[in-house]
């Protein structure tokens, strides 16, 4: 176990940022802390780095209790959302910083520092930019410098706080593929914070979904997407149709029985049902209960909005399927739902 978080609690005034959080990070994995803003994910990451203190609980880094250690003693790499590069230093000096500030006895010679820095700059494909200043680089390049700088101290774990948050959509996508590849090459235990579900699902080995200072679910990307453990995770991850229903004998009745859906778990009574748009099937039917109220085509996909007894449902399919069905706005249709997750209404 690379990082073991047990019972960590953190309070800012009256606001509880973290509430008894337990988490294990396995050696060599790339873990995502995913949640909306205010969920405590960044606080948790900063506590791991020692940039924030915990009120109670314990944190072990590679089996060693770390809460009492200062950031400099923890030997973690930290990458900031806004890079936090030293603006008055060149790219080379930024990366060399962690090596130059070591106590004299542990410090490498000048040529060894140079060798290591250039090696890292090769790794992040920025060797030609060694003499540039951060202000002369693009956002993606700056974040790669920040990564090289964090790796220079040979950290035991790498912590990244919204590493792609300040980048535009295209660069963000490129950089995250590149980071995944880099991680596959060097296998350093890494934890990154994000509020972007797509980023977490695409990049991480495991995803930790957080909300209001608590962990809602931990699992592989497929796991948390296909089997959300709570209503929160269902709503937070991906698009979802949400409607009130009454469950009796494993069947959820929606809108006074206009729709009946088999349910998986043993919830009874008043509940909320969740159905992913691509789990919602449509077929043309002159006497069907639904009515197509809108069709939006986005690239290869089509989103179809259906009115059903006062509810608006959204179905997602590819364009070929849509043209095969021949549905148009105003058409009546039948709605098939194979499965729904229901959670008791609070």
């Amino acid at each position, binding site marked *: 176990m690379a990082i073991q978080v047990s019972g960590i609690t953190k309070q800012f005034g009256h606001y509880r940022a973290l509430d008894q959080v337990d988490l294990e990070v396995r050696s060599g994995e790339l873990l995502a802390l995913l949640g909306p803003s205010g969920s405590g994910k960044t606080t948790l990451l900063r506590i791991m*780095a*020692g*940039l924030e203190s915990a009120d109670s609980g314990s944190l072990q880094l590679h089996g060693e209790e770390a809460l009492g250690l*200062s*950031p*400099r003693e*923890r*030997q*973690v*790499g*930290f990458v*900031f959302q*806004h890079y*936090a*590069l*030293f*603006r*008055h230093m060149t790219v080379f000096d930024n990366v060399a*910083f*962690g090596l130059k*500030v*070591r106590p004299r006895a542990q410090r490498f010679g000048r040529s060894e520092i140079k060798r290591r820095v250039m090696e890292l700059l090769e790794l992040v494909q920025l060797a030609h930019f060694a003499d540039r*200043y951060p*202000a002369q680089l693009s956002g993606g390049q700056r974040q790669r410098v920040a990564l090289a*700088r*964090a790796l*220079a*101290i040979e950290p035991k774990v790498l912590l990244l706080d919204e590493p792609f948050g300040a980048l535009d959509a295209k660069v963000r996508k490129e950089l995250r593929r590149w980071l995944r590849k880099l991680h596959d090459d060097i296998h350093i235990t890494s934890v990154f914070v994000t509020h972007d579900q797509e980023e977490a699902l695409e990049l991480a080995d495991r995803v930790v979904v957080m909300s209001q200072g608590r962990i809602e679910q931990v699992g592989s990307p497929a796991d948390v997407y296909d089997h959300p453990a709570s209503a929160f995770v269902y709503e937070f991850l991906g698009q979802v149709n949400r409607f009130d229903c009454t469950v009796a004998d494993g069947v959820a009745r929606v809108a006074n029985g206009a729709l009946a859906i088999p349910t998986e778990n043993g919830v009874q009574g008043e509940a909320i049902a969740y159905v992913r748009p691509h789990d919602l099937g449509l077929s043309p039917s002159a006497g069907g209960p639904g009515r197509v109220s809108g069709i939006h085509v986005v690239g290869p996909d089509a989103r179809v909005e259906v009115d059903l007894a006062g509810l608006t449902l959204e179905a997602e399919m590819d364009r070929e399927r849509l043209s095969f069905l021949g549905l148009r706005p105003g058409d009546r249709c039948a709605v098939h739902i194979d499965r729904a997750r229901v959670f008791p209404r609070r």
Partner: protein
Amino acid sequence: MLAKTSGQRPALDDRSWVRGLLILSALAFLLLFLVLPLVSVFVEAFRRGVGAYWDALIEPDALSAIHLTLIVAAIAVPLNLVFGVAASWCISKFDFRGKGLLITLIDLPFSVSPVISGIIYVLLFGLHGVVGPFLKSQGIQIIFAVPGLVLATIFVTFPFVARELIPLMQEQGTEEEEAALVLGASGWQTFWRVTLPNIKWGLMYGVLLCNARAMGEFGAVSVVSGHIRGETNTMPLHVEILYNEYNFVAAFSVASVLAMLALVTLVAKTALEWRFGAELAATRH
């Protein structure tokens, strides 16, 4: 030409007319209130020739005044540099109770009349003051002596460095310092290698302003000085005495030295901005 443009584009023409007027009035204002007085200082100083000018400067009382001014500035400015950096470091990098109060207190010397600043020290350290009698029994004199001048100058010039640095450091935030700490730097290493280089131009600017004010301060210093010729007269005080004695050439000669100090400060500031403009902009963003 005028008829043509005013016929086609009256709005633009209007604007350029207004612009011309504004520029002219600004220039006239500058000339009247800045250039003319400055020139007149030098004209008056050299009215009886270079010899008289020089004599007024090397006269013992004048030399002593220049000497004293330099000493006061040499003590007050470095101290305010340290105070200023420490205060802005506290205010911009840490959160604590009473921060707003501290910021207000730092601004106090700007909002209080310098005369009052001087009187505060007289009330504290004067013979009839709070701690004056005790100090007197110990053989320490503060008021009507150099320590009083230094104290008053420090008080009056306190805000310059801090005021320059606080917004700059607040804007720069704490992320770079955090990055340095995580990378293994100690507190001192972080300060010397990260914080200080990021604020050095702002700091230099603050020190220049602080120095200009320390040398030119009149009000507070006048109250605590006692005007003892050759002993507790700084240059501004010396100028006043000479002027009151109708010794205009000498008064303006000493004044011209002060004016030159101000000019040197301005030139140094402009040179800094010109030479390191790009870097200044880089550390601000």
